[in-house]
């Protein structure tokens, strides 16, 4: 049988990344490498160089293309490929980069890439990806996957823009194999998202293992994750597999990853890099091929600064970031979710309850929801169980008054709140797009530097924090 041909498009020949990649894939596939020394960007597509490149790809006719590039030139390269608009872009494309920047990676996956890899390159990382892509490209998106995408995603309820922006990333990130970090307050649906990613990915049909790291006593975490050999400690009479072994081939979901003791974080990082680990007391190294999705309800950058999460682990996990909004930040979804839970529990408890009174809806909307969607679900379930009427009214909704926004917020108060919100988002966005340079950001906002600085202080924006996020 003819071996599949792989093309390495080396756009960063001064680095050894392409050589490492070539060594790994040459053992299994025919490899052809094209080195391009010149910088390419959106304008290059119309030049001779761009045209030659556009011709060389169909001539080689590869089954998979690896694009090796440095992180700082990734955006230009994406724009170049995007402007090519040629048939070759139907070939699965894997981006290989020294280190990834989550937003740019999402942009690649949205527009062009099937997957991507970051340093260090490992056989166990690279080869299964290629086999998976070859399997996928040999058959179009199956009917089952298309329907699953449509129906399964219906579990993620919400129409607000902030929520949709995150949820729409799920089918895109599901098809690649990169680590994902999901952040969001407790009860915002992190596990639902992780599960959707698993079942829409090529790993569906294998194990999905959710683990709440916060619920495992610190001294048992390593044993739980990596397992132990017989005799590893006094009560270890027989060997026991860990969760990593259980999840082999599938997905391991580490919720509250910030609760992992630092020693376990080191071991997890090593596993993520090498795809191999050693069970407690074992002499042999074990291998596992799985995808890790981590989640935290903390601000992870702060957790890194406070030493709760190791910085190197954070970078390894945060290849793709999903940030789920709190329920109070998507108030427009509250009635939708409330009706969803009402229908769900009306069937389960066999109650003839059909809807909510206007005062019940108002009460739900004005509540702060510190426990987010999970709290809303429990409140609706309780109201339904205790209600004897066909309509749930305000008095049936048992929520604390201390978390309820003032009912009679004046127009001016509401306006001030929105202006505050807008100013904060606007300034943060401007700073991020200007590499946190205050003078340049002020100029772009057409404000003087001093007034701009006052706004930064008013909203307590940490420029240093943004800088570390942008770098």
């Amino acid at each position, binding site marked *: 049988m003819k071996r599949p041909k792989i093309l390495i498009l080396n756009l960063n020949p001064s680095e050894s990344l392409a050589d490492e990649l070539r060594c790994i894939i040459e053992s299994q596939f025919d490899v052809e490498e094209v080195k391009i020394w010149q910088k390419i960007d959106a304008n290059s597509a119309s030049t001779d160089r761009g045209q030659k490149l556009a011709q060389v790809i169909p001539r080689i006719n590869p089954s998979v293309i690896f694009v090796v590039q440095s992180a700082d030139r990734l955006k230009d390269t994406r724009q170049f490929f995007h402007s090519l608009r040629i048939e070759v872009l139907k070939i699965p494309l894997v981006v290989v980069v020294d280190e990834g920047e989550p937003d740019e990676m999402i942009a690649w996956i949205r527009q062009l890439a099937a997957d991507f890899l970051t340093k260090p390159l490992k056989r166990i990382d690279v080869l299964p990806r290629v086999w998976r892509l070859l399997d996928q490209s040999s058959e179009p998106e199956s009917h*089952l996957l298309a329907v*699953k995408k449509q*129906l399964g995603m219906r579990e993620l309820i919400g129409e607000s823009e902030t929520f949709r922006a995150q949820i729409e990333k799920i089918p895109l990130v599901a098809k690649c194999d990169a680590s994902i970090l999901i952040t969001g307050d407790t009860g915002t649906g992190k596990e639902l998202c992780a*599960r959707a990613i698993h079942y829409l990915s090529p790993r569906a*049909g294998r*194990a999905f*293992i959710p683990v709440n790291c916060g619920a495992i006593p610190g001294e048992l975490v390593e044993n739980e994750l990596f397992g132990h050999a017989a005799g590893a400690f006094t009560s270890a009479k027989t060997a026991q597999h860990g969760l990593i072994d259980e999840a082999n081939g599938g997905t391991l979901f580490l919720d509250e990853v910030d609760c992992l003791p630092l020693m376990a974080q080191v071991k997890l990082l090593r596993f993520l890099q090498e795809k191999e680990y050693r069970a407690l007391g074992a002499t042999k190294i074990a291998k596992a091929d799985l995808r890790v999705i981590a989640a935290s309800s903390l601000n992870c950058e702060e957790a890194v600064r406070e030493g709760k999460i190791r910085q190197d682990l954070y970078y390894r996990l945060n290849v793709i970031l999903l940030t789920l909004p709190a329920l109070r930040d998507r108030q427009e979804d509250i009635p939708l979710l409330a009706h969803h839970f009402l229908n769900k529990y009306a069937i389960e408890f066999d109650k003839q309850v059909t809807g909510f009174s206007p005062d019940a809806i108002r009460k739900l909307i004005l509540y702060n929801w510190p426990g987010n969607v999970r709290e809303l679900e429990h409140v609706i379930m309780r109201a339904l169980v205790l209600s004897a009427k066909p309509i749930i009214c305000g008095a049936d909704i048992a929520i604390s008054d201390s978390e309820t926004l003032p009912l009679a917020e004046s127009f001016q108060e509401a306006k001030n709140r929105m202006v505050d919100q807008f100013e904060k988002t606007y300034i943060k966005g401007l700073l991020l797009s200007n590499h946190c340079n205050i003078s340049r950001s002020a100029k772009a906002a057409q404000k003087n530097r001093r007034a701009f600085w006052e706004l930064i202080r008013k909203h307590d924006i940490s420029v240093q924090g943004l800088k570390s996020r942008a770098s």
Partner: protein
Amino acid sequence: MNDEKVQIAYEILQYLIDNPKAQDTLEGIVTWWLLERTIKQQTLLVKEALAMLVKDRLVLAQTGNDSRTHYKINGRQRKRIISLLQQES
């Protein structure tokens, strides 16, 4: 066990036979395993029903250049279809 429970039990077992390495909690089984089984079963049933209708010449099947088959009503059999539907109701 009642019929519905037995049916679901069989569906879970079938999923596990099809995917011997699968593992998940209740939430995942409800949302994803059973969804997948339902889609597969429905697809199979619809496929068989369509084959029967095409064989009876009540529905026409046309394969396009993209190799996908499109189904449409056989206009010449309209009266027969209406009478079949009336009989059924």
